[in-house]
């Protein structure tokens, strides 16, 4: 039997990959990076790097990068809430998750964005749980009904309760890590277990060009010490905060990520680190950061290829849209991104549900994107040989009146060879019109209620809910608020 060939797309030649890495290493050695975090600077100093304590500049020698690359696993496993289901992050495995930390939610009925609240976070988490092709959840919305200074931990508090999937998250403040870590450790049954079976990935974004802020470097250090995987999200904007050429931006991207990788490995040798990003082709007219631009996706695919070349797990912000509603643009940008990410073999692909650059989430879009991700998965499964011979034996049985519909062979394979969609419209015109001539977004909107009304939420045990609530309340009290919004579902 001939196995399916995994379809794969690479944009760069090997020579080009090596040239970009070469310049990035020189950049780190000559120009260095600005490291705002004192502890991170101390780590670099201890490793023998030249550290300018006045200007916070650290020059990183190639040897340290090589050591950091050597101690970072090329693949690792992340586990769901129960600790039973594992997902490999590395090689060409692809996992989609909702785009993270949206500050707005798109209301389907009014077609307007509004501030998300506790109930929205719960609904989004529950919908993600129901989406077969979205393997991970993320703390995708920032709840506007709690104070900003606990908004990071509050997202995790809700996500952990309402979905069992592994979580992509991150801190908004240097003190945010502690309560978030406590929640994760509680769910996992202790910090050692959490180290052994990671449940969450923490995103950390360097500030372009070439700067690791106090907050983000602290997140890298805290995660590394706890054995929690960090995802490095370099985010240059071509021609604004990074060179305008794609290759030039890649040099900066690689340098920023490698500096972050070094911080992680210095703080916790061997901790998993994902080579990721959220760069964009800066719009020279509007001053915006289009995630749906083809050049943005070209940058993503290229740095992911470089990450793979370096032997690292990869991540990208793809499969999201700049459109403000679920329209044609939204579908085209999301599909293009999800398909290209899958073809590039990017391990963690963040973006599902997102519209309006990276600022809004749409519940309807999560469901639509689930179907897009399903198609992308089907595509990379490729074409396999199922039978020997392929078809000759079928034709032997074929008479002038016969067809394939009733053949056992058809029944055996049709669900495996072909993906059944549930939101894409494949009706005849009349059937579509008879059902109210609805758009895909309308159908997705109706599906939300079916899912939320038809299934019980996948809740944490009562004891763990209580424990998370205690941790969350402690965090709230320390930060000046004595109560939390009511949780209803």
């Amino acid at each position, binding site marked *: 039997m001939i196995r399916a060939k995994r379809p794969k797309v690479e944009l760069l030649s090997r020579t080009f990959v090596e040239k970009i890495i070469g310049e990035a290493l020189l950049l780190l050695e000559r120009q260095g990076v600005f490291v705002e975090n004192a502890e991170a600077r101390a780590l670099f100093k201890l490793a023998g790097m030249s550290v300018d304590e006045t200007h916070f500049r650290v020059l990183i020698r190639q040897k340290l990068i090589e050591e950091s690359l050597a101690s970072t696993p090329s693949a690792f496993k992340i586990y769901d809430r129960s600790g039973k289901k594992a997902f490999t992050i590395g090689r060409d495995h692809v996992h989609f998750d909702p785009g993270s930390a949206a*500050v*707005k939610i798109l209301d389907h009925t009014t077609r307007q964005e509004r*501030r998300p609240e506790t109930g929205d976070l719960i609904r989004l988490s529950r919908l993600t749980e129901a989406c077969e092709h979205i393997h991970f959840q993320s703390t995708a919305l*920032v709840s*506007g009904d709690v104070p*900003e200074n606990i908004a990071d931990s509050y997202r995790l508090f809700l996500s952990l309760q309402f979905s069992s999937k592994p979580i992509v998250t991150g801190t908004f403040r240097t003190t945010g890590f502690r309560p978030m870590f406590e929640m994760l450790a509680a769910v996992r049954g202790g910090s050692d277990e959490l180290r052994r079976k990671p449940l969450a990935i923490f995103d950390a974004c360097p500030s372009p060009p070439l700067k690791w802020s106090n907050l983000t470097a602290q997140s890298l250090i805290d995660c590394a010490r706890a054995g929690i995987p960090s995802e490095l999200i370099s985010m240059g*904007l071509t*021609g*604004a*905060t990074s060179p305008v050429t794609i290759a030039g931006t890649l040099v900066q991207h690689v340098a920023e990520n490698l500096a972050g990788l070094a911080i992680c490995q210095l703080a916790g040798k061997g901790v998993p680190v994902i080579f990721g990003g959220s760069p964009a082709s800066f719009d*020279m*007219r*509007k*001053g*915006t950061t289009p995630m749906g631009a083809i050049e943005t996706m070209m940058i993503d695919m290229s740095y992911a290829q470089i990450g793979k070349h370096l032997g690292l797990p990869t991540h990208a912000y793809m499969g999201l849209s700049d459109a403000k509603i679920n329209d044609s643009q939204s579908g085209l940008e999301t599909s293009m991104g999800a398909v290209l990410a899958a073809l590039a073999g990017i391990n963690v692909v963040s973006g599902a549900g997102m519209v309006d650059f990276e*600022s809004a989430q749409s519940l309807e879009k999560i469901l639509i994107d689930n179907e897009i991700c399903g198609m992308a998965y089907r595509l990379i499964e490729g074409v396999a040989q199922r039978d020997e011979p392929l078809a000759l034996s079928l034709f032997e049985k074929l008479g002038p009146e016969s067809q394939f519909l009733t053949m056992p062979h058809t029944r055996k394979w049709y669900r495996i060879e072909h993906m059944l969609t549930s939101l894409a419209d494949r009706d005849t015109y009349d059937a579509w019109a008879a059902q109210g001539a609805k758009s895909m977004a309308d159908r997705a909107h109706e599906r939300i209620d079916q899912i939320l009304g038809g299934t019980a939420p996948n809740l944490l045990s009562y004891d763990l809910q209580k424990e998370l609530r205690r941790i969350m309340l402690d965090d709230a009290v320390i930060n000046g608020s004595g109560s939390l919004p009511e949780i209803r579902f």
Partner: protein
Amino acid sequence: MELKNRLLRMMAAAIVEGDKETAEVLARKALAEKLDLHEVIDKGYLPGIQKVGELWEKGEYFLPELITSAECMKAAMAVLRPSLEASHANSLSRGKIVIGTIEGDIHDIGKNLVASMLSANGFEVMDLGADVKLTRFIDKAQETQAEIICLSALLTTTMLNQGRLIELLKERGLRERFKVLVGGAPVTRKWAADIGADGYGENAPSAVKLALEISPKRGQL
């Protein structure tokens, strides 16, 4: 006369082309020739930056051209400034503006653009940077006797602080003293009206237009 007109045309062209070196050379030439600096700015450089604004509106110029021309303008003004200050500094300002990205927000690309364009168009701009405390906007505006406060915000969460600044001005009995303009990606005309701001600029050139319209010193240059 002939020479002067030629120089004025070249000044405008240097700004339109974004040729910083030429813009500076011409400014030094103006000083050497003892030209009326009022005229140099008004009929030389300013028409250049105005042309840049028009090209932007027509969709011919993009951000790189816009910001480069604004930087050229700044460079030329830097050459002229010492002599201007020696003679009649204040009358050469279209007004004083305090600008910054609001508390909690560290995004400043948009704000920098607006600040550059305002300053290129003859305003005295005090740029307080990013993540600026509300009280600092007010203190600085009082201290420098500015007419306008410009507030930028990129996040919906920090956008709320624009409204708080206006409240704070009211509390201190200073609301009538300053014009408040707001901008930033999530900001809309409706939001500006809701919080009682004096105006909303969608982009840098429209912020300039707005500032020129509401500045008490309009047309006084």
